[in-house]
């Protein structure tokens, strides 16, 4: 089963932010700033992943399409595949 672009993108991003938020925090050396750095990594991973997820899910099943001017349609007819 050929993996669609969506599935690839989903797994790559989940893996990436999961790594940043779930794996790297275990490797931060012990010191006075460890708590702050771990918090920062986890929160950054959660926020950025959530933001990307909302963007991609909202475009998954569009209910309407873009309205383009006829010049734009003419251009896109030849230049986008």
């Amino acid at each position, binding site marked *: 089963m050929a993996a669609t672009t*969506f599935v690839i993108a989903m797994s790559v991003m989940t893996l990436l932010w999961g790594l940043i938020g779930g794996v790297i925090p275990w490797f931060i050396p012990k010191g006075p700033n460890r708590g702050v750095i771990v918090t920062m990594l986890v929160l950054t991973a959660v926020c950025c992943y959530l933001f990307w997820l909302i963007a991609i899910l*909202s475009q998954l099943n*569009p209910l*309407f399409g873009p309205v383009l001017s006829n010049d734009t349609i003419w251009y896109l007819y030849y230049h986008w*595949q």
Partner: protein
Amino acid sequence: MSSLFRSEEMCLVQLFFQTESAHNCISELGHLGLVQFKDLNPSATAFQRRFVKEVKKCEEMERILSKKVFSTFEKLEQELREINRNHATLRQNLIELMDIDSLLRMTEDFFEEVLEINFSFFSFNFIILPPSEDSVFVAGVIKQERFPAFEKVLWRLFHGNFVLRHAEIQATEELQARGAVKKDVFIIFVQGDHVREKIRKVCEGFRASLYSCPKTLYERKQMSNSVMTQMEDLRMILRRTEEYRAGVLTRAAEHVQEWGSKVKKMKAIYYTLNLCNIDITQKLIVAEIWCPVSDLAVVQNALIKGSEQSGSSVTPVLNRIQTQQTPPTFNRTNTFTEGFQAIIDAYGVGTYQEINPAPCTIVTFPFLFAVMFGDCGHGLVMTLFAVWVISQAESLRKWKNEVTDVVIGGRYIILLMGMFSIYTGLIYNDCFSKSFNIFGSSWCVRPMFHPHGPWQNETLHEYHHLQLNPSVPGVYSGDPYVFGIDPVWNIASNKLSFLNSFKMKMSVILGVSHMLFGVTLSLVNFVHFRKFQDIFLQFVPQLIFMLSLFGYLIFLILYKWCITLRSETAPSILLLFINMMLFDYQSEHVLLYGGQKGLQIFLVLTAVLMVPVLLLVKPFLIYRTRMKTRHQVSRAEKDNVICFLLQVSMGDIFVYQAIHTVEFCLGCISNTASYLRLWALSLAHAELSEVLWRMVLQVGLKISSGMGSLMLVVLFAAFAVLTVTILLVMEGLSAFLHALRLHWVEFQNKFYEGSGYKFTPLSFDSLLKTQQ
């Protein structure tokens, strides 16, 4: 336990130290900057304090110091004036000597010339000018501008019976540096001795300086040499004088700085001593300090060092005491975190040992800013600006301007805001209002044409705008653009229809998540303060209320995004939500999934049930415990005062709980709506950016005439200035303010009390820094 998540544990410590070592001990503590002295004489006025005399003395000294500084300045001034006067005289002498020198050099030529003239006269006329003895010559220096008038006067006086020669003194660099004016050397040869007086008077009138010039060549050479040596000496003296003057000034400046800081420290020490108590025996000073528990050892060492310095034999005693008073809130920050802690403290300093929102704010604040700012080009400019400020922080601090101080204090905040803005800008696919097409758009135009779709070639000629239909196979590829918003929306005229729907739903999702995070932090607070009852009476009902209504709303949004619907029959989420709250289920309303009606009724009823739980259960339990204790007390003894007190505060408890419940429940709805500002501001930013592009830069790029490149330069400058002032500064400040408000109100009212007072230790570093 990591210190930034909640404020440090503080302890109240009693210090006993001898009066002699008091000064040194407190000085040591001041250098440490870790203890806050408690006022042990709060009822005493400023005049009644023990060390009021010493404080007064210090203030006197400050005044005296400024006076002494004054008098030192006066002395300095006199000294400097003398030095300057000497300097001026010496310079004048030098100039005179230089004039004599040039005079001597030039008169050589004149003498030769005159001898020739005499000779020629003699040979031509046999009379008139006998050589040397009877002819008088006068030599001098006059200002160049006065020379023509001087010459005229001499003509009138002697009717032409004189020989006048003059030459300009070459203006050397040295002369110019010492501010001399242009001068001429002149020499007059006249007949007759009696005219010497007349010439002298004329020269005096014209303020020309006359110099005696020896007649013989040998004497002139000797005079020239002596003048040379004198000049060298004078130059050396002048140089020495200047060096001495500079040295005096620098030494004075150093001393003043030192004395000033010493007096400030002493004043602080005496002010601190005023807060302490002195023992009956007048030998011991008792102080109470707030100090972080983890720093007790350091404080002890400092005290021992202080007492050793003063030569006292008794080491100070530290005695930790238990107290019911609330300690101050101390959050240990470093250069990176202190900016974020400052914006939290600006709203309210946290209650002692409650959870500190600052570590979470380090990420969520720049993130929410970036959601509203969302442009990777502007974000890049902001990041570069922040990097520059961070690298130049020390040299920029010298400007001592309020605005620069604020920018320098927040430089790490600006850096994070810029970095997150680059990320959200890439997801919004917005870079100076243009989109990137890195991965290839998911929308295709070709399938809309025959034979797959409804369009013909003629359709393009008939209609100016056409809409792509995603239900036509091939138009939408089925896989969304992998990173962010598809680039086709940037060139579509209905871009806002799509983006508004996307951004509003995104705001609601982010807002409800942020608020749920806030409610979870209140759980952490309850666990720390061991209020386990509150977990079931407050945290759990709040969570259920929020999740059943707004968590379900998020579920609806995500569900509608994930399923395939026919666009004509797709229900609006807003209408679904409103109908759910009103229990309005008419048959023509389309639902999203089977069983939706039942589930929604269940969720609304659960949420409504939580309200009386929040409102009544906790006060009821408190009332019951009070009843029990009151019965126990009345069985033992009748204490009217206690009963009275208990009865009064029961009403207070009910009112407080009612306020809290109403605030939470209504606040849920209003706060969720408040997060829609994330959508509003990002829309405003995108539109402003687009206007600047279309009205300024695009106009410049479309010019086809030859002057186009010049116009483009001017227009680009205008574009840059407007981008920085409107989009970066104005929109940046606006987004900063709104992100701050979202944190202070919508996020923090779920868990933060903020009723503590800040830990202000005695620290000489901060004292000197603030007073500079």
